[in-house]
């Protein structure tokens, strides 16, 4: 029996190590490529480590390729869209969790169907609508669309978190003469900060990564977000893989960072009956 256990533990350790390499290696290799000088990117045999690691790809990216602009655009768009949709989903999620009236059922069903519709599927009618309002090729337009696509899902998620917080505490505050909104933001929301961070992270990850809507809506170079910039890179002839790799590292870091700090809460959000992968 004991020998079995040692054998099993060794096998487990071995398999987990292999999977770790499998999971981490692709990004590690992109990072290595981004540190190579241009002439070593296409050298054969392949150099597993750059002979003299250099940041020249990053320098090129931020000086010639205007990447700081794209990064800033992405940050503005995804942070504001996520902040607004998280805030609104807290308002709606709160009453959807606390009220026991028939409307709750119908609103939840409405939100359930709405969040089933993938964003890329409705980008054309949105484009036509937004061109009427003069919101094409403007970051504001993309921000509004992003706020809309995350809202339904965030609300369902936020309701789930509110359901787990006992209502007695707010009720005590209400009796003390505290306003409803004040009771919500002074007492309940601070108690579900993990939930809030999960909702915000979900929404940030989705908007930071979104390509198709941004590619359709944004045309001028100064308006591009990071994914669209990468998309236009690969269409350009003569783009070097060390520069593209540097761009990928910069594009992937923010969501890795968000995942690293909010991982526990994201996993809680994913497993608590949240519906999106």
């Amino acid at each position: 029996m004991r020998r079995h256990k040692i054998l099993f533990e060794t096998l487990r350790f071995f398999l987990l190590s292999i999977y770790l390499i499998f999971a981490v290696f692709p990004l590690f290799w992109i990072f290595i490529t981004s540190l190579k000088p241009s002439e070593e990117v296409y050298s054969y045999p392949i150099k597993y480590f750059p002979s003299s690691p250099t940041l020249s790809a990053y320098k090129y990216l931020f000086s010639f390729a205007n990447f700081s602009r794209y990064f800033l655009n992405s940050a503005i768009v995804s942070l504001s869209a996520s902040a607004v949709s998280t805030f609104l989903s807290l308002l709606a999620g709160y009453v959807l969790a606390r009220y026991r009236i028939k409307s709750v059922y119908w609103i939840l069903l409405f939100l359930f169907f709405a969040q089933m519709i993938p964003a890329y599927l409705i980008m054309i009618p949105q484009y036509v609508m937004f061109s009427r309002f003069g919101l094409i090729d403007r970051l504001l337009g993309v921000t509004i669309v992003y706020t809309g696509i995350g809202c339904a899902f965030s609300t369902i998620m936020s309701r789930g978190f509110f359901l787990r917080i006992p209502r007695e505490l707010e009720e005590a505050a209400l009796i003390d003469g505290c306003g409803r909104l004040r009771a919500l933001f002074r007492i309940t929301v601070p108690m579900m900060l993990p939930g809030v961070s999960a909702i915000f992270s979900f929404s940030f990850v989705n908007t930071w990564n979104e390509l198709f809507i941004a590619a359709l809506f944004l045309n001028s170079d100064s308006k591009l977000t990071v994914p669209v910039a990468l998309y236009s890179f690969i269409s350009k002839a003569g783009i070097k893989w060390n520069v593209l790799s540097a761009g990928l590292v910069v594009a992937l870091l923010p969501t890795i960072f968000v995942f690293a700090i909010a991982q526990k809460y994201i996993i809680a959000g994913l497993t608590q009956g949240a519906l999106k992968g």
Partner: protein
Amino acid sequence: MKSTPHHAAWFFFLMVLPVILIVSFLVVYPTIKGVVMSFQNYTVFTFWRVRFVGLKNYVEIFTDSDFPSVLLNTLIWIAGSVTLQLILGFILALLLWRPFKGRGIYAGFVFYPWALSGFAIGLVWSWLLNGTFGIVNDVLKKLHLIKENIHFLSDPNYAMLSVILINIWYGIPFFAIMILAALQSIPKEVMESAMIDGAGPVRRLFSIVIPYIKPTLLSSVLLRIIWVMNFPDIIYGTTRGGPAGSTNILPVYMINIVFYETNFSKASAVGVIIIAILLVYTLFYLKLTSYGEMEF
């Protein structure tokens, strides 16, 4: 079903109103408008003289000689990706089940692909799988598994297999996270009594673990199918549907019509076909998981 005096109806509607307005205006209305557009002749050039053209766009799609293979590709893409994501995610969850030192950190390192952009991941792997300078080819040759470089993404025989493998890499964390959470909800006593009864590991897996987490498995698979079907990002970062249409799945087919043909109405018609599939599938999902009878 009664509301306390503290919970007035006006407060309820005031609080849900912003979300309902936004979702109606930015999701529901565009969906309806998309259906209408699919019967019109919107292109970038006919923007201001739009008229109804009946079923023209649908006829065009259904008579497109590529369309049957697009449907078939979509099925292969879904079946291949979801099956292996599930099996490997399950195995990973089982390996992580019993706590060990550093499990949290390990999970962080292997679950992170969940947060990455599918498009960027497509680009990452297109460099790794590059037919000339790709490290995967180099490693396979060093291990004497292949003699000639494989053009993973530009050879029609390998392209679909390659994008599915990338998608598996990307999707394992989702299943592992869901299944691990379900495994941790199995009461200790149930497993212990099975062990006392002398049930071996395989027996325990099939007669206790799998039946216990079946609802999670079912709902994760059903949700993942819908999600993978609507996931053109990896393919857009690698092959954009090529070579020779070998990785062209429904959403890629639609987006290519938007970006390259700029025929908005025809793309909308593809969108309506996808929505129809989604709707039928969602009703099926609701029935199977009884989400429709959710408590509130």
